């Protein structure tokens, strides 16, 4: 069922790249940001038509039945052009949850076809504003409480909410326009927005309950973490290419600045870093496709995100430095890459966080 056949992946990469380039490359991301910061619903449908959103959903449920390795290829292409469409979020989180918990629910088909977008609300703020324990409740078809850091909330038609039910966790679906549901937008460095949601007796439909919800959530987060890493790999790749072009052409002291040895070595170091990140993340995705143990999958995902964040931060920040003052302008694309890297790094844990998680997971496996 899972395909990580190299030829398939190459074809997939080529068609995804063509699709994004035809749509306008990174210039499209800038336009959408300036127009208010959400994605283009037409583009979501176009991606859906190419099979992108259902890439990991089994064929019987209307997807392509490919694995994370294939989804990672797409995520890399999303990263290269900074596409704001909720690809990783839909493939990893929304469909990641639904295909595990209720693959026959009508929303699965709607998500795959791009007719609807659902954001996933699973975290809450605790003391001091840091992530804390879940307190949002689900009872008698109603949600009450709040959720934080909901990526894609503005622009989504509804929310998949993980809430506390009478006996354990519940996955509930609510519409963005439902009674008592409000979204406080928090603008991010790349112009996108996360939502802080609050519900007061908001009508919702129960999709699943019990331990299955916890397990599906944890596994879907592992998938999404690894896919976000792949998006960062694509982003780093393109940021590096832009910078390499720049130092070959920008002249100071009557020669291209790329002729100064110190910049040559910097460029080489960044290139090594991006190759290591790409190799590591791609290997992780392929291994996750053959791995069923959730603890191991979690450790693999942490490995990918830790590496990708470290590389993307270093590459985009050095890229700005190597551009000099133009790198600090909004006009040059390189700043968009820096800002997007900030957003993808903070989402689902940065490198320091995932190094800790990796170590913890490894210790637990050792003990088992």
């Amino acid at each position: 069922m899972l395909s990580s056949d190299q030829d398939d992946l190459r074809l997939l990469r080529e068609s995804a790249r063509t699709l994004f380039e035809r749509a306008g490359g990174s210039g499209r991301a800038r336009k959408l940001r300036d127009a208010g910061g959400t994605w283009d619903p037409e583009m979501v449908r176009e991606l859906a038509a190419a099979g992108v959103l259902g890439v990991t959903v089994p064929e019987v449920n209307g997807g392509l039945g490919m694995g994370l390795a294939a989804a990672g290829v797409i995520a890399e292409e999303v990263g290269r052009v900074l596409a704001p469409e909720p690809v990783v979020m839909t493939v990893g989180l929304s469909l990641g949850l639904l295909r595990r918990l209720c693959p026959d629910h009508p929303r699965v088909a709607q998500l795959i076809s791009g007719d609807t977008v659902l954001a996933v609300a699973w975290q809450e703020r605790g003391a001091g504003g840091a992530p804390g324990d879940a307190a949002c409740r689900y009872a008698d078809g109603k949600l009450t409480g709040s959720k934080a850091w909901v990526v894609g909330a503005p622009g989504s038609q509804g929310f998949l909410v993980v809430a506390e039910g009478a006996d354990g966790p519940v996955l509930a679906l609510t519409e963005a326009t439902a009674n008592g549901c409000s979204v406080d937008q928090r603008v991010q460095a790349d112009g996108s927005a996360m939502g802080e949601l609050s519900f007061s007796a908001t009508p919702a439909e129960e999709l699943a309950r019990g331990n299955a919800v916890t397990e599906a959530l944890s596994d879907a987060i592992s998938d999404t973490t690894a896919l976000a890493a792949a998006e960062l790999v694509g982003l780093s790749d393109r940021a590096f290419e832009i910078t390499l072009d720049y130092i070959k052409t920008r002249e100071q002291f009557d020669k291209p600045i790329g002729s100064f040895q110190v910049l040559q070595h910097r460029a080489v170091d960044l290139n090594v870093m991006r190759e290591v990140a790409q190799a590591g993340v791609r290997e992780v995705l392929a291994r996750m496709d053959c791995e069923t143990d959730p603890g191991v999958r979690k450790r693999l995902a942490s490995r990918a995100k830790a590496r990708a964040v470290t590389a993307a931060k270093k590459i985009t920040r050095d890229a700005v430095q190597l551009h000099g003052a133009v790198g600090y302008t909004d006009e040059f694309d390189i700043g968009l890459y820096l800002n997007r890297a900030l957003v993808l790094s903070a989402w689902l844990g940065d490198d320091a966080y995932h190094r800790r998680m990796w170590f913890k997971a490894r210790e637990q496996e050792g003990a088992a």
Partner: protein
Amino acid sequence: MADWNTMSDAEFRKEVRRFFETEYPEELRHLPHRPKFAEVEHWHRKLHARGWVAPAWPAEYGGMGLNAAKLLIFYEEQQRWGVNRGRDMGVQMVGPLIIKFGTRQQKDYWLPRILSCEDIWCQGYSEPGAGSDLASLRTRADIDGDDFVINGQKTWTTMAHDATHIFMLVRTDPGAPKKQQGISFVLAPMDQPGVEVRPIRTLAGETEFCEVFFDNARTPCENLVGELNKGWTMAKALLSFERIFIGSPSLAQNALGQLESFARCRGAFDDPVFCDRFAQAALDVEDHAALYARFADQLKRGETLGADVSMLKIWVTECFQRITELRIEAAGPDGATISPLQVGNVSVDILASFYKARPTTIYGGSNEIQRNILSKAVLGLPG
């Protein structure tokens, strides 16, 4: 006027602290952005009335005439209380140059106007083709009767959209055998038909610097400072001053304070790994302050600083960047949020200091250029 230098350091510090704490407007403390003059004007009036606009200038020109030790205390207290420097390019950059190289007439005319902020200055050095290689600048000033006629373009000119005057390096002898020759230092008014200012948006979404276009703009020949075609040496004297200024611990110390209070609210110190990283940053700042004090002592003894001052800028700017990155880390899922974040009872802009830290390794002579200087002039490496 008081002779501050006869006071003990402790007394002086107390006096400065008292003034800032009682007089500085609360709403301007730790401003996250570069203010326009109008925003800080009421504070400037107070400073001006007290004669404290130019702590480093000699008293005869309306400054406080502080010696190096007192000056350091002044700046320390300023940053401790989060006092904005205001629009200080006149005081920090063009003023000292006029004091050193200007004629009696130039001093009498320009210096009081700098102190009162009747004139607000911006720095016109960089051009699209002349950044690190500043000496290759091409903006021309040709003598026409009693005027210079200026043609060309400056760029990255900080706050040019809120300035009345520009001090600039211009080419006055295009035929000179070396590019460092034939450059002059002139002052020009911005409010004239031949000057056009276009603000540039930064990646942080702010307008902090501008392009400035000159199309037959004019400035009287008497606005030449120093000798014709000798501007390069003068500007370099100013750059070394800029380096000790950028090399001062204040930005990093400030950021460290912000990091600490944020991390405490967020419970980040429960994590030993974070504690280690914080300690690393804090020690980087403390030891930098020790190194800075060594250079400050040199100034106190009346010595001029050598090329080795560059190391201050390298260390502190890179340290500043790491501290702001650590705060992003402490913010976890809020780490990329631009909207103000409520932490305890204060509202925090997580990214403001991160964005402020990025260009510190680019401007004032990029850190790569500083390393080139150190390797040649200090380590004596060939090449």
